[in-house]
C-alpha cells in the first residue's frame, strides 16, 4: 500500500462496491475517481472525506496517516508460510475504527474496560 489510490481501491473492494457505485455515493465523477485510484491524480482532502464516508473507513486510514498499524503487535497461527496478511488487514481496520470511536468519545455499550496486559 503505497499511495492513497491503492488504499481507496482496497476499501472499495472490502466494501463490496463497484467503482461506479462508489462514484455515485461519494459524489465524485467516475473518471476522477478512476484517476485517483490509479495514482494519476492526487486526491484532495474533501474527496478523501467523501470516499471515507462512502466506504465506511476513517479519513486517517485512507489518507495513510493512521498510526494504529505502526503501533500494532501481532500473534498468529498460520501454515505453509502464510503471512496471514488478509486477516491482519481486517483486524488492523478494526483497531483503526476503535481508535476513531475513542477519539469521537463514543462510549462502549457492553462489557468493562479492556485490561492492558
Amino acid at each position: 500500500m503505497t499511495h492513497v489510490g491503492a488504499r481507496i481501491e482496497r476499501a472499495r473492494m472490502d466494501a463490496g462496491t463497484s467503482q461506479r457505485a462508489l462514484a455515485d455515493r461519494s459524489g465524485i465523477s467516475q473518471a476522477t475517481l478512476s484517476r485517483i485510484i490509479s495514482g494519476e491524480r492526487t486526491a484532495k482532502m474533501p474527496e478523501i472525506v467523501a470516499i471515507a464516508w462512502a466506504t465506511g473507513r476513517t479519513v486517517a486510514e485512507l489518507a495513510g496517516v493512521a498510526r494504529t498499524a505502526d503501533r500494532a503487535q501481532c500473534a498468529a497461527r498460520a501454515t505453509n508460510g502464510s503471512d496471514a496478511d488478509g486477516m491482519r488487514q481486517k483486524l488492523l481496520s478494526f483497531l483503526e475504527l476503535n481508535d476513531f470511536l475513542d477519539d469521537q468519545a463514543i462510549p462502549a455499550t457492553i462489557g468493562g474496560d479492556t485490561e492492558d496486559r
Partner: protein
Amino acid sequence: MSTEEHGRAAALRFRREHHLGVQPLGDLVAIIEQVTGYDVAVLDAEPDEHGLTVRDPERGTVFIGVASTPNPMRQRSTLAHELGHVLFGDWLDSDTGHWSARRDEEIRADAFARHLLVPREGLQEFLGDREFASEADLSSVVQRFVVSPPIAAIALHGAGYIDTSAKREWLESRTPQLAFRFGWIDHYRALQADSQQTRAPQRLLARAITGYTEGILPAQSIANLRGITAEQAEKELEAAGVAPTVRPAAWSDAEDLPDVDVDLGALDELLNAPDDGGDSSDGTAKDDG
C-alpha cells in the same frame, strides 16, 4: 518448567480466575469476549490463515481473529491457541510475518489450548475411575468437549486412560468419521454450520452502532464489520429501529442575541500601562529629534 507445564498451569489459572470450573466450554467466542473484554471476530480468510491477534499497546485494545471454517474443532483450538498468545504476551511487530519461527511460543500456546479445552479434572469427572478408555469414549470426549480427536487422545493419554500405542492410533482419527459411527453426525453438522458463520467483534460492533446513531459513522461501517452490503445493513438497522439522531441546528438573528455587559476597563488599563522600557505612556514612540 517445560512449555507443556507452562501451558497447563496458565490454562488452569485462566479457568480458576474466571470461574469456569472444569466443565466443557460452550461458545468459546462469547466466553472469551465476556471474561477477557477482548473482541473476537470470525472472518472469511485464506486457507492457510487460521488465526491472528492484534494488539494496540498504547490503548490496550486486543482483537482476536479466527477463520470461518467447516472444521469446528480446529476453529476452537485456534481460538484457544490465540488466547494463549495474548495471555503469555507473545507479541511481534505486526509486519514480521514469519509466524512459524517461534517454536517454543507455539508449543506453549498449543499446550494452553489443549488444557483449556479439556482440563484433566473435567475429563476425570466425565469418565470416572474406569481403567481404560474405548473408542466410544474417545468419541464422547470429542463430542462433549468439542475438540479434535488428537487433542482428546493426548488428554486421555495424559490422564492415564490409554497407552501410547492407542494414543498414536487415535491421533489419526477424524471427527466426521467418529461422529458418523457413534451417531452424533447431526450434532456435528450443526457445529459445522456454526463455525462457518462469520461473526463481527461484538463490542466494537455495538460501539459502531452507537457511532451510527450519533451520525458519525455511515451504515457502510456497520456493513464492513458484519461482512454484508450497505443496503442490507441499512435494512437491518431500520428493522431494529436504529436511526441516526437528527439534531436540527437552531438558527437565530444577531439581533436576537442578548445584550452582554462587557467591562473593558482592565484591558484599557493594560493598554495604557507604560512599557517595560519606561517609554511613552501613550504608546507612541518618542522622537529622538
